[in-house]
């Protein structure tokens, strides 16, 4: 290394170039992308790059929303590129992709576009055609049995995804496949790499989403061996309030978050049911108060008011989401479970900590991917609502995990990741005032 510092942008561009250079040399190339590291940008770039060779390309995403997002970005970056979108019969074309892609339920309906985008589920119904190239987006969230159904459609593929998010799951017990290299419940990337250990794995090194206040925290807690940095430096992102506050605990939490990027709004320790009314109330009030304070986001994108659609609320369980919705939220604020917030980006997030009010942690609540998704959606600030007592809960957590032979150990451990995040949040804690 020379003393000359490489800018994050140059570093990231270097990785992208290396990925593109590797594509023709290998049957598969894997790119690990931490939160907001430009995964979609890479997909769009690679799509343009491959389309330029004149060979057709298939793109596989996991949900209809992801497919539509990709089409919007592809059309914007490559306006001359003919794009096709395969969809199910009951798919309603959203406004944002109208006119940007040929849409049909079967390949022949699309004409012969250079790029065809569809969900993995839809691709599994497409017949015998063989594509020279494929891009698999969100490949860590794709179950390997889905890949098995479509891998015969392509010769070479670029697999892109975030290894730190939630693993795929099943409603049935998959123990009978434990340790098999093709365990259908493992992620597509895990199975791919187990059978093809020599494939190159690249890592996008810069998160463009997470601010300088969040990247180190998220990187250390959830990506201990493959760290990343933020694309913006300290102070380059700011959150300011146009309206004054009243020094309530809510205001102080929001101000702490604006100032430092994080706040822990801490309710008194108590064991509660999952839909802890006080915590739910606090989340809803924080969201409302945030908007009342007329927040403005200042960043490399300029100065923009934080509108409701730039705010998200995240929780672990669907009943919590329902309870938060029922608590009365400002119109337009997103509220959803970690599962469904994967891949999304907001200016400010308010999350209900998965371990808040619990007496015991379960594997579900400790899953590192869950907390990772919740704490890595924001460009400016993240407010965590939790009951005090989580450190004690973690301390008392029994380690009784079973071990299956030949199943690679997953890192980071949820316990460790939770500790790391809490240790950081403790520095930004604001005690809740008594309600009402």
């Amino acid at each position, binding site marked *: 290394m020379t003393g000359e510092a490489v800018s994050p942008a140059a570093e990231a561009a270097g990785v992208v170039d290396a990925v593109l250079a590797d594509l023709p040399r290998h049957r598969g190339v894997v790119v690990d992308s931490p939160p907001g590291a430009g995964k979609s940008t890479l997909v769009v770039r690679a799509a343009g790059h491959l389309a330029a060779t004149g060979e057709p390309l298939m793109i596989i995403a996991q949900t209809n929303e992801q497919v539509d997002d990709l089409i919007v970005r592809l059309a914007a970056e490559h306006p001359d590129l003919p794009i096709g979108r395969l969809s199910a019969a009951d798919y309603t074309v959203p406004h944002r992709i109208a006119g940007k892609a040929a849409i049909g339920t079967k390949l022949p309906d699309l004409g012969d576009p250079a790029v065809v985008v569809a969900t993995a589920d839809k691709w*599994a119904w497409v017949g015998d055609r063989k594509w020279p190239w494929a891009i698999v987006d969100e490949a860590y969230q794709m179950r390997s049995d889905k890949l*098995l159904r479509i891998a015969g459609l392509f010769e070479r593929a670029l697999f892109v995804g975030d290894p730190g998010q939630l693993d795929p799951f099943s409603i049935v017990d998959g123990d009978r496949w434990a340790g*098999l*290299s093709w365990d259908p419940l493992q992620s597509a990337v895990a199975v*791919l790499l187990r*059978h093809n250990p020599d494939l190159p794995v690249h890592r996008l090194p810069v998160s463009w989403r997470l601010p300088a206040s969040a990247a180190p925290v998220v990187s250390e807690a959830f990506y201990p061996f493959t760290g990343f940095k933020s694309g913006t430096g300290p102070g380059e992102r700011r959150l300011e309030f146009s309206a004054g506050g009243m020094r309530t605990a809510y205001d102080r939490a929001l101000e702490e978050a604006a100032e430092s990027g994080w706040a822990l709004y801490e309710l008194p320790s108590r064991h509660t049911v999952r839909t802890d009314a006080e915590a739910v109330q606090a989340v809803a009030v924080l969201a409302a108060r945030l908007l009342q304070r007329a927040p403005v986001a200042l960043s490399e994108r300029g100065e923009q008011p934080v509108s409701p659609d730039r705010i998200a609320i995240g929780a672990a369980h669907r009943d919590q989401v329902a*309870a938060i919705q029922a608590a009365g939220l400002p119109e337009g604020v997103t509220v959803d479970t970690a599962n469904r917030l994967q891949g999304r980006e907001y200016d400010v997030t308010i999350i209900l900590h998965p371990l808040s009010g619990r007496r015991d942690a379960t594997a579900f609540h400790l899953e590192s991917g869950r907390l990772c998704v919740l704490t890595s959606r924001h460009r400016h600030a993240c407010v965590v609502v939790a009951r005090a007592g989580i450190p004690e809960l973690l301390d008392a957590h029994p380690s009784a995990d079973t071990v299956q032979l030949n199943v690679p150990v997953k890192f980071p451990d949820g316990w460790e990741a939770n500790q790391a995040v809490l240790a950081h949040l403790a520095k930004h804690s604001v005690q809740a005032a008594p309600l009402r």
Partner: protein
Amino acid sequence: MSTLAALARLRALQTGRAQRLATVRHCHLSERPMVFIPLRLAGEAAAPLAAMAGTDPRHPRLLVVPQPRDRDLRFAFTAELAEVILPYVEGLQKATETVERRGSEPYERCVDAPQLIVPNRGSVAFVHMLGRSTRFRRAEGPYAVHPSVPVLGRWLTFLAQRAQYPGSAMLLAATEALSLHWATGQSMLEDANLASLVSWIDPPPGMTGAAAAREAEDPLLWTPAGPATDPGFDTEVLAPAIRAYEDTLTEHAAARVGEAVRSQLEPTWRLMWRAIGLLGALPAGPGTAARWEGDRASFTNFAAQLAEGGPPQPKRDGAVGAASRLARMERAQASYDAQRAYDDPLVMAGYRLTGEAFTGTVLATEPDRTEGEGRGRKLRPLLTVRTSDPVRLAPGTRLGTPERRGQQAEVVEIAGEHVTLKIVKGMGRGRTATPGAVPEVGERVSYASLTEEFQPPPGLPAPEDTPWTHGGPPVEYVPADEEPEEEWS
């Protein structure tokens, strides 16, 4: 655990008696089930020590291995077990019925199927192990076994694999079947003890379930239900008996081992039939017959495969086999969950508590409401239900209803206690609703966000076309000869 199940456990603790978790029976119960209680020698993976088996409560068959480390005696045991299980299984293949299918050839399906009931999950695992250790055996060559042994191995493997299949009833663990229907005043962990579980459900006269369950934990009063034996029994009784057999190799000494294990098995035998009696006293849920039909079809298929001389089941699933099995299991799980809820208001109650379902009274309907024009015009009736349940369903959610199983409705709006629904499926093609198709005002209805609707999964590649991402085509499957089996030291 649902609040409902938690409350039921609290009640059980308070009253000293198990509480119902189901109003109907959710597993098929055969008219002639076979009870099978295997015991394993401690420290070994699959060395059978003894078993009690049979279809007649009054005449259990006791099978014993007087020296479980002796390979020949072990295979003699499995041959004897084959004499008990194979006639039962094969007898059920005789009577068949013709099943007509739309767009496909009719086929023959057995009218009944075997049902093996074992005490607990450990016994199910042991059935799997016993199947694994015998199905690759050969009747010729070195270490030849009786020809029935590999056949038994395949049947045991088949049954153990079916047991992983949600809703299947061909191999049942008594503890699990009972726990599905009753909540006890102890933990789920303790429910794995058959004696204490049955004590909670059906305590002896003059005793509370709690007291009886505590007593049932004492291995001297209630012998363990296997497959592990009580270490105290091993030390005090079994080890000396086996040693005596080794020293003398006499019938008498073998009989001593037999009597020792009989003392361990007989209490469980009686307990198993009590458990079956308890389950049998519950009326069968409507879904059990449909699921048993699936079991019968699977049984018929496997019998045919066996008759055609197919190879023994592979040791592990290949990539394609695993994916296909997973898809079938997930489908079975989803429909099992839905069927139980629609069959049983007490199961539905759990979903009502979490807001995924609700029960209420119809306040208003628009039965002949339509959507679309001309040929695309469809009946889309609206109804408003008043409920005091805490409904947590987003508009647009698809719902099913136990009252009209073919229908589906969509949530339109929830305002306080009023839920407005639109029936979107199962209204037929008529211009007006057929009588009864739309609930009447005042009718009590339930809706839940569980559907039995099944989307056939997309196809999988043929195993020989396994793609490079999954290891490529597998090497052709040749059932391997077992590793040379050495003597147990």
